[in-house]
């Protein structure tokens, strides 16, 4: 383990990816993620890696597709409007069973929206990152250190299941600095994988990286097979942090930046004797329903705190099979909820209000 250093979230994303053996970055500038690209452009040439600024997000994600299809660790990073442009490529990547990492440092939307922090791409990340039946594993870090740790896991799980993975950050986590310890760097393993398109060297039949199949029964079978893999992911890869849940009457469900605000509010409420806790999803897909369901009987009510208009509420309702009421508190458009606001919600709910 290395020395503790103070790093910006965005720069930590880049350094963590390098430590995870990634040597291929393709991207396009957009606030508030640009430091990721800028950092990569500085580091990659010095370590024999590739940094390439594409002419658009559309091109960048397809460069990732090409590099990843040839069997190397490849990634891109962007902010919300950029993901919309990349959604075509993400769908092809998923349909071609190619692992890669996509980072979204979220900003307010819709449209051009704003550049301040947001979590309003929750639905896009977990449910519809492109056309067709597919999923990505989506991680939601809440600290700079956790961002570093999850980047490495995202690459590893992507390789394990041959799926694209996403680290869903936001403008706050991307721009803030916190102390981090970077992991021991891994050597990039650029050996050709058995499925990859990197030249058959006259030793095997050709590999084809492809998402096209015009025969419905075959395409259906391929989708079924992919969903068998997804079932394993749902079974094995759910992650969440539980905070003061055991005796909690109120359980907050919040991820990323809003979970930090919620933690502060919970600490304040606990001092007043209010029994409130939090389940903090670390994976957004698969949604950590196992962790939330545990408290469906013991808790009296649930509250999601989000930087959007309540995109996660239904997932919580499903996880607890609607056994308890689920309230929502959120800010949007780049606003960050304050500790005081969340605390007031807790007090209100504790008094029996909805």
């Amino acid at each position, binding site marked *: 383990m290395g020395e503790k250093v103070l790093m910006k979230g965005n720069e930590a994303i880049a350094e963590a990816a390098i430590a995870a053996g990634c040597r291929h970055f393709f991207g396009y500038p957009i606030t508030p993620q640009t430091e990721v690209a800028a950092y990569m452009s500085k580091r990659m040439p010095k370590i024999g890696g590739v940094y390439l600024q594409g002419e658009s997000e559309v091109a960048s994600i*397809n460069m990732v597709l090409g590099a990843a*299809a*040839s069997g190397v660790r490849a990634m891109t990073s962007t902010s919300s409007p950029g993901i919309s442009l990349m959604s075509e490529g993400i769908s092809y990547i998923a349909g071609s069973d190619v692992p890669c990492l996509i980072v979204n440092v979220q900003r307010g939307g819709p449209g051009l929206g704003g550049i301040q922090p947001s979590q309003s791409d929750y639905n896009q990340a977990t449910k519809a990152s492109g056309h067709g039946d597919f999923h990505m594993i989506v991680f939601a870090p809440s600290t700079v250190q956790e961002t570093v740790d999850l980047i490495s896991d995202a690459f590893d799980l992507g390789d394990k299941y041959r799926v694209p993975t996403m680290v869903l950050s936001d403008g706050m986590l991307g721009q803030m600095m916190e102390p981090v310890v970077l992991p021991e760097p891994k050597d990039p393993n650029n050996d050709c994988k058995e499925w990859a398109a990197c*030249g058959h060297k006259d030793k095997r039949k050709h590999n*084809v990286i492809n998402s096209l199949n015009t025969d419905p029964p075959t395409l259906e079978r391929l989708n079924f097979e992919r969903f068998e893999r997804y079932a394993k992911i749902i079974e094995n890869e759910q992650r969440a942090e539980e905070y003061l849940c055991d005796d909690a009457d109120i359980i907050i469900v919040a991820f990323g930046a809003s979970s930090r605000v919620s933690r502060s509010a919970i600490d304040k409420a606990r001092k007043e004797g209010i029994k409130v806790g939090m389940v903090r999803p670390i994976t957004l897909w698969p949604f950590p329903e196992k962790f939330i369901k545990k408290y469906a009987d013991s808790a009296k009510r649930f509250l999601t705190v989000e930087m959007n208009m309540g995109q996660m509420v239904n997932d919580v309702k499903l996880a607890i099979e609607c056994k308890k009421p689920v309230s929502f508190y959120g800010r949007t458009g780049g606003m960050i909820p304050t500790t005081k606001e969340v605390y007031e919600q807790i007090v209100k709910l504790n008094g029996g209000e909805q």
Partner: protein
Amino acid sequence: MKVMGEKPKALTDAPFHYCPGCTHGIVHRLVAEVIDELGIEGKTVGVASVGCSVYSYNYFACDMVQAPHGRAPAVATGVKRARPDNVVFTYQGDGDLAAIGAGETVHAAARGENIVAIFINNAIYGMTGGQMAPTTLPGQVTQTTPYGRDVKVAGNPIRVCEMLSSLDGVALAQRVTVDCVKNVKAAKKAIKKAFEYQLAGKGYCIIEVVSTCPTNWGMAPTDALQWLRDNMLPYYPLGVYKDIGEAKE
């Protein structure tokens, strides 16, 4: 018995799905012959595009990646940057290369990506059934220009080789056709030169093949070839638009 001719090794045994008289088959064969002659099949990665040639990944025996519509140059960029020792080519039609993928094409060319683009220009969308292409001629009737292409409404065709030849990253931009034996031979020579340039690290090479689409043009194959000579070649003259020769390594 003496073998008079053989399928190139760089083609699989899969039968082509192309229509009778379509020139895709000839161009596939030429690319495969060049790969055989250069002995590079084991290190070649092809990028298939979207259009009639989408299934080219079934026909070329080298490793293949199938790209989203228009994105073949970006996908090829990713492969080549990750695997600079591999030989990488795209095989794209006019809709893919010059309409939806015009941005990717121009920027891959401008960067001087060390890849080969085989560009089939038949002035029409084949796969979707005969709509206007960016290279559809003025006055040409297609399903979506039923009264003939009116340039005041639909805009003008794009001469891709001429356009790309102004970019510094381009090593070779040449327009060929495959309407007769002589031109087929010249086309093969051009394709071979493009692959040799890539092996020498010279940069982006594009070989535009002026082609026919008898089915969507609504003509017999021989009539289509004549129509190509009478209408396509005057608008898209054959020739070398850029060739940096030995100038750049």
